[in-house]
């Protein structure tokens, strides 16, 4: 086991164990969604699109889907300008208390989600906006904004400041430089960040659970509520919607930034 072969066997066995563990729920859900029976059984009974049809007829899931979409769009629209400006500020300008600001901006990651969610629930309740849908979008932007700032900051880090200086030398003024040089150059970072914000908002469960009520449930909360009652294959069909969206996101991220970016050593 200490030879080259042994190393390959150990490494690949452990890796494949993880691959199976990571992939199994996804594959099982996809399989279960095509059953024609009333229950999820093994081996499955028959093959059909029945549950996808039933899904389209279920108002609760359909409206929860649209609410999730609405909340995710709000979250993304708020995050883009805030993230771009903050990314520029942290990368391009020396701010006093820079270190403190960085720690402060990472608070959404260091404060436990349940605490952030409850804190915002108390605050939103106090200013009487709890129960509306748009504050959920704002809250989701709050808890994930570091992802947006990181994506933009990484893109700005890869942009040569001399390009902007050159534009200034040619007579361009600050606003024009921003829109014609800086913005196009960091566009892929902005799109990457926006995509992350969207998909994470679309998936988010705990903060949505705390900030919604029966009239404003989002899709993950709706799935959770249905799990508690009884497990029917229609949930598998909704879950496939998530799997498809996740696959599309990964494909787009790979085209934009390349998944290999995560292999870069720091």
């Amino acid at each position: 086991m200490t030879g080259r072969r042994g190393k390959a066997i150990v490494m690949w066995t452990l890796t494949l164990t993880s691959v199976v563990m990571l992939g199994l729920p996804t594959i099982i859900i996809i399989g279960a969604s095509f059953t024609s029976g009333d229950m999820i059984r093994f081996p499955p009974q028959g093959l059909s699109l029945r549950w996808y049809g039933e899904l389209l007829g279920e108002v609760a899931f359909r409206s929860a889907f649209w609410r999730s979409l609405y909340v995710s769009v709000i979250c993304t629209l708020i995050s883009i300008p805030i993230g771009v400006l903050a990314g520029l500020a942290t990368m391009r300008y020396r701010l006093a208390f820079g270190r403190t600001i960085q720690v402060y901006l990472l608070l959404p990651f260091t404060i436990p989600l349940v605490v952030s969610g409850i804190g915002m629930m108390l605050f939103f309740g106090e200013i009487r906006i709890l129960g509306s849908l748009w504050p959920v979008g704002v809250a989701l932007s709050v808890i994930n904004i570091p992802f947006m700032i990181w994506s933009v900051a990484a893109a700005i880090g890869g942009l040569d400041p001399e390009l902007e200086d050159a534009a200034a030398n040619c007579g361009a003024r600050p606003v024009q430089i921003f829109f014609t040089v800086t913005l196009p150059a960091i566009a892929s970072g902005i799109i990457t960040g926006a995509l992350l914000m969207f998909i994470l908002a679309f998936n988010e469960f705990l903060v949505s659970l705390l900030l919604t009520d029966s009239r404003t449930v989002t899709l993950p909360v709706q799935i959770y509520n249905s799990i508690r009652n009884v497990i029917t294959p229609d949930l598998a069909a909704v879950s496939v919607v998530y799997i498809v969206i996740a696959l599309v996101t990964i494909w787009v991220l790979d085209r934009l930034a390349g998944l290999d970016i995560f292999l870069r050593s720091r």
Partner: protein
Amino acid sequence: MKQAPANSWRPIDAVEAVVSTVWPRRWRDKIGWPFIAPALLLVGILVIGLGYIIQDSLHELDIATYRLGDDYTLANYGILAQKTVYRTVIGRTLLAAAIVTGVSLFLALPYAYVLTRTSSSAMRKFLLVAIFLPFFIGQVVRAYGWLIILGAKGLVNSLLGLLGIAPLDLLFNYGAVIFGLIQYMVPFAVLLLLPALAAIPEDVELASENLGANWMQTFWHVVLPMARPGLVGASVVVFTLTLTDFATPEILGGGTTDFIANTIYDSFFEISDPGLGSALSVVLVTIGSALVGLVFLALGTGTLDIARHQE
């Protein structure tokens, strides 16, 4: 062909004029502040929320009115310290966080190693997609998948049935929660280990093997110490995410193995005592920050150092 009007530069010129009036040139070295302000305000919502939690934690529930009393008191913290149920929950959560961190790193290390060392770009892409897919599917959907697999009439019990083995209770216990959490954390651990492992040149490993070390010795004495920043970062992230998790114990534990986050939720929505729930929230933040602080003091900040992102 339509020609652009000759004065098309005018709108942008007007914008420039407005901007330079609102923010004159001599304030140029302070231009970072209006840029960072929206982000500071956004995160401010979180800080205000924390303020409400601390405030509520200092007021005791008045049983007569079911509202928080007006007097400042540490009574809620007293209750948390006295009742064994809270110690049990905190102990259970800390133990789970330790186990999950250990096992996730054990699985993530070879995964990240194979990912950085494989020569096949197709394999590399496959392994990356395999981590990102569960990451983007969300916790609820994944837990639902495990309900199908581990349930009384699920995949595992059906397979056991074919072998003539009686169905096992695989769900709604501590083991199921730990397992679900490990599956949830491995992608995080791999992503945080990748940069550290990618930074280790293969030549170093070859040198170690040339000097007579077998691969296990090389891994233990060369790769692991060099990957330390990544190991520290991954441990801290996995530990704190497990410590504060809600969905996995809720769905796969089925109310039998509540973690701190579930107990906080129940304080608000089951026993309707926001004071007690807030106090437990403050305790959770304190435990989390104290542990992370200790690790950083003892081992350095690893890959999580914020200053690195600025360079």
